C-alpha cells in the first residue's frame, strides 16, 4: 500500500534463485501438422491427454475382467451375461479355469501397469509438473514422446497375448516361477507378458528420468522445494522410486526371459533340469525388491494430490506442509528396505523376517504424520464439498482402512495366517486400488477444466462419487472378512471346499456390490464425454486456488507461460490477512508493492 504515513521502508525481498532457473526455456513454435500435434506430440499437455485416454482404455478392460472374476466367484458354473457367450461359446458362456487364472493375472497386470500408472503418473505427472512449477515443458520433450509410444508397444504386447494359443499369462501378476517358466506356462502368452513388462518398465524409467530432471532443473525462480505443491512432491518421489526400482523388475523378467527363450537355469530347480540348479525364490526377491516400492509408486501421486485438494477445498493452508512432504520422503526411503514382508512364508531366516517386520512397522509413523495432517488441514476449515473434494475425502477414508489392515500383514504372526488369503486382496485393493482410483477421479474432476477448458457436471459427479464409494467399501471390506474367515485367493471354485461353503452369501454380496461399482462408472464415462463435447466453458481459475497452473488460461497455450512466473508464496496461501476481497492468493501474486530482486546464485 503506498501509504504516505508509512515510516519504515519496505525491505527488498531477495528471492533465492537456484541454478535451475538458468536452464534456458525457449518458446517453441506450435506444431501445425496433425501428426506432430496430436499423435507424435512433444507437448507435455498433449502427452498427458494421450496417457489419460490410454489409461482409461485399460481401466475399462481391467474393470470388465474384475466383473467376470467376481461373477465366477459368486455364481460358479453360470454363464456371464452377454460377454460370456462371446468369449467361451464352447462352455456355454461359463468361464473355464484356465481363463479364470489368465483373467486374474491380466486384471492385476493391466490395472497396475497400464491403467493406474498411465493415469496418475503418465497423465497427471506430465500435466502437473511443468504447469505447477512454472515451466514451459518437460526437460526432455522427445524422451517424453518416446516414453508414451514405448508404453503403447508394451500395451500391444499385452493385448496380442490374449490371441495366442494357450492364451495370456496365467501365473498371477507377480509371475512367480515355476508357474511362469516353461514348466508352468508353455504358451507364448507369458513371454509376451515379459516383453510387455520390460517395455512398460523402460517407458516408466524414461518418464522418471524426465520428471526428476524437470523438478530439479526447471522450477520457476522462487519455487524452492518447499514452495512446490504437494502433488509435485508426490509425483517427484514416485519418479525417484521408479527410476531406482523398476530396473530391478527389469532384471528379474530379463532372467525369466532367458530361462524361457534360451534355456538358462536361473529360476529352474529340481527334476526339470539335469545339471546344477537355479532358485525360484530368487525371482521372488527380485520381484519384491521392486514390488514394495511399486505400491508406493502407485500411491504417492494420489497422496500428494489429495494433500493439495484437501487444503484447496477446506480453504486453509495445508496443515504441517513440511511435515507432510518430509513424511512422504521418509516413507519413500523406508519403502526401499521392507520388501521381505511379502515373503514371510517363503522360509526366510527368522532374524531377517523380524528385521523386515520392524522396518515395516516404522512406516506407520510417517504415515500417521501425514494422515493426521490431512485431518488437521480440514479441521475448522470452510469446506466446499465439490466433487474433487468428495473423492479426496474418499481417499482419506479408504486409505485409512487399507493402512490399518496393513499392520496385520506387516506383523509376522498374523501374516502367516492371513498370507495368500482374501484379507491380502482386500488390504492391497483398499490401499493401492481404491485409494489410487479415487485419487485419480479427484484429479480428473479437479484438473479437467485446465486440461480441456470445460467444466464437468457436478451433479453427475456427486452421484458418481456416492455410487462408487459405497460399493467400493463393501467390496474390499467384504474381502477382508472372507479372508479373515480363511478363504484363499485365486480359488476358481471355493465352494469345492467344505469349510468355505458358508461364505456364499457374503461372496454374493461382494459381487453384487462389484457389479454396482462397475455400472456406476458409466456415470463417469457419460459425464466425461458429454463435458468434453458440451461442458460449460471453464474460467481461468474456477476453483479459486493459488497454484501456478490456475494463473494461465484453461486450457493453457502451447508454451504454458508467456513469461516464466516469479514465485512469492507457498501453494496453499489461503485467508492471508493482508489480502482483501478474496480468500486465496496466487503463488506469483505480490501483496501490495513488495519489491523483489532476483539474483543469480553466489551473487
Amino acid at each position, binding site marked *: 500500500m503506498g501509504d504516505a504515513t508509512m515510516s519504515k521502508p519496505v525491505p527488498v525481498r531477495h528471492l533465492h*534463485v537456484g*541454478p535451475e*532457473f*538458468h*536452464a*534456458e526455456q525457449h518458446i517453441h513454435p506450435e506444431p501445425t501438422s496433425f501428426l506432430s500435434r496430436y499423435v507424435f506430440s512433444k507437448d507435455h499437455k498433449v502427452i498427458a491427454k494421450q496417457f489419460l485416454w490410454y489409461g482409461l482404455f485399460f481401466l475399462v478392460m481391467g474393470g470388465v475382467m474384475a466383473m467376470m472374476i467376481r461373477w465366477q466367484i459368486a455364481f460358479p458354473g453360470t454363464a456371464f451375461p452377454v460377454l460370456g457367450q462371446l468369449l467361451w461359446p464352447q462352455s456355454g458362456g461359463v468361464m473355464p479355469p484356465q481363463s479364470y487364472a489368465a483373467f486374474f493375472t491380466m486384471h492385476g497386470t493391466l490395472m497396475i501397469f497400464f491403467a493406474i500408472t498411465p493415469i496418475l503418473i503418465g497423465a497427471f505427472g506430465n500435466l502437473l509438473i511443468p504447469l505447477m512449477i512454472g515451466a514451459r515443458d518437460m*526437460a*526432455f520433450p522427445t*524422451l517424453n514422446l518416446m516414453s508414451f509410444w514405448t508404453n503403447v508397444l508394451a500395451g500391444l504386447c499385452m493385448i496380442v497375448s490374449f490371441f495366442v494359443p494357450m492364451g495370456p499369462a496365467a501365473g498371477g501378476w507377480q509371475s512367480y516361477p515355476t508357474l511362469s517358466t516353461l514348466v508352468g506356462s508353455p504358451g507364448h502368452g507369458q513371454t509376451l507378458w515379459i516383453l510387455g513388462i520390460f517395455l512398460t518398465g523402460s517407458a516408466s*524409467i524414461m518418464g*522418471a*528420468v*524426465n520428471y*526428476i*530432471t524437470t523438478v*530439479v*532443473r*526447471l522450477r520457476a525462480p522462487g519455487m524452492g522445494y518447499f514452495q512446490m505443491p504437494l502433488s509435485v512432491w508426490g509425483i517427484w518421489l514416485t519418479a525417484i522410486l521408479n*527410476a*531406482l*526400482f*523398476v*530396473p*530391478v523388475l*527389469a*532384471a*528379474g523378467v*530379463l*532372467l525369466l526371459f*532367458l*530361462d524361457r527363450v*534360451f*534355456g*538358462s*537355469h*536361473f529360476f529352474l530347480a529340481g527334476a526339470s*533340469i539335469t*545339471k*546344477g*540348479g*537355479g*532358485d525360484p525364490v*530368487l525371482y521372488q*526377491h*527380485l520381484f519384491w*525388491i521392486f514390488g514394495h516400492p511399486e505400491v508406493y509408486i502407485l500411491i504417492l501421486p494420489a497422496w500428494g494430490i489429495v494433500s493439495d485438494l484437501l487444503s484447496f477445498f477446506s480453504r486453509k493452508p495445508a496443515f504441517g506442509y513440511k511435515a507432510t512432504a518430509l513424511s512422504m520422503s521418509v516413507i519413500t526411503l523406508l519403502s526401499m528396505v521392507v520388501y521381505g514382508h511379502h515373503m514371510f512364508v517363503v522360509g526366510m531366516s527368522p532374524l531377517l523376517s523380524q528385521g523386515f517386520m520392524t522396518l515395516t512397522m516404522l512406516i506407520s509413523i510417517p504415515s500417521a504424520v501425514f494422515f493426521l495432517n490431512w485431518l488437521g488441514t480440514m479441521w475448522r476449515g470452510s469446506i466446499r464439498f465439490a466433487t474433487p473434494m468428495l473423492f479426496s475425502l474418499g481417499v482419506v477414508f479408504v486409505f485409512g482402512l487399507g493402512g490399518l489392515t496393513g499392520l496385520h500383514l506387516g506383523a509376522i504372526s498374523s501374516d502367516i495366517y492371513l498370507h495368500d488369503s482374501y484379507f491380502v486382496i482386500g488390504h492391497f485393493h483398499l490401499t493401492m486400488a481404491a485409494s489410487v482410483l479415487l485419487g485419480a477421479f479427484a484429479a480428473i474432476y479437479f484438473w479437467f477444466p485446465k486440461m480441456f477448458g470445460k467444466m464437468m457436471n457436478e451433479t453427475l459427479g456427486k452421484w458418481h462419487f456416492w455410487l462408487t464409494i459405497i460399493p467400493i467399501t463393501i467390496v474390499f471390506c467384504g474381502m477382508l472378512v472372507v479372508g479373515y474367515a480363511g478363504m484363499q485367493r485365486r480359488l476358481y471354485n471355493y465352494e469345492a471346499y467344505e469349510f468355505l461353503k458358508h461364505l456364499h452369501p457374503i461372496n454374493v454380496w461382494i459381487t453384487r456390490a462389484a457389479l454396482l461399482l462397475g455400472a456406476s462408472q458409466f456415470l463417469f464415462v457419460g459425464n466425461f464425454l458429454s463435458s468434453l463435447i458440451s461442458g460449460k466453458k471453464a474460467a481461468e481459475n474456477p476453483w479459486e486456488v493459488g497454484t501456478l497452473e490456475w494463473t494461465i488460461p484453461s486450457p493453457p497455450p502451447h508454451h504454458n507461460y508467456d513469461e516464466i512466473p*516469479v514465485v512469492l508464496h507457498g501453494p496453499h496461501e489461503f485467508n492471508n490477512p493482508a489480502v482483501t476481497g478474496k480468500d486465496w492468493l496466487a503463488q506469483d501474486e*505480490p501483496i501490495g*508493492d*513488495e*519489491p*523483489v*530482486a*532476483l*539474483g*543469480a546464485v553466489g*551473487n
Partner: protein
Amino acid sequence: MAVTRFPVPEESRRTSFVGMVMALASWTMLFVALFFAYAVLRLRASAWPPDGLAPLPKALPALNTLVLLGSSILLHFGSRPEAEAKRGALRRALLGTLALGSLFLALQLAVWVPLWRSGFRIDTGTYGSIFYGLTVFHALHVLAGLVALAVLLPGAFSGTYTSGRASAVRLSAMFWHFVDAVWVVMFVAVYLV
C-alpha cells in the same frame, strides 16, 4: 511489483547432465540386481564352479579388461575441454575408443566360442546361465556404447564437436565409462573370485 532480472547463462547442458546421471543411476540398479541374482545363486551352491565344471579362463578376460580401461582413458583425455587446443584430439580419441571397443567384442567372442564349442552353454546349470547371461548382456551395452560414439564421428570430423563441452560427446562418454566400470566389477565377480 518491481522485479529485477539478472541475465542468465545457457545452462541446458547441465540439465542434460542431470538427466544422464539419473539414467545411469537407473542403469546401475539394473546391473546391481543382476549381480544380486548371481550372489544369491552362488551362495546357494555347495561349490563354485558347481558340478565339477572347469573354472573360466582368466588370461584373455584380463587382457580384455585392460583394453576396455585403455579405451576409457583415451576417451577421457581426448574429450577434455583442455584437449580442444590440440587439433583433432577428439577425432583421434573417438577413433581409438571405437577400435579398442571393437577389439573388446572380438576378444569376448574369442572367449565365448571355444567354451560354447566345448559344451559349456547357457543351459549348463547356473554357472553357464550366469556366465553367458551377464557377459552377453554387458556386451550388448558395449555395442550400444560403440553406436553412441560412432554417431559422433561425422560431427567430430566436421568440427561441430571439438570436446566434451558438447553435450552429445559428454553424455556418450559418460555412458561409455559406465559400461567400462560395470565390466570391471563383472570381471572380478564372474572370472576372478
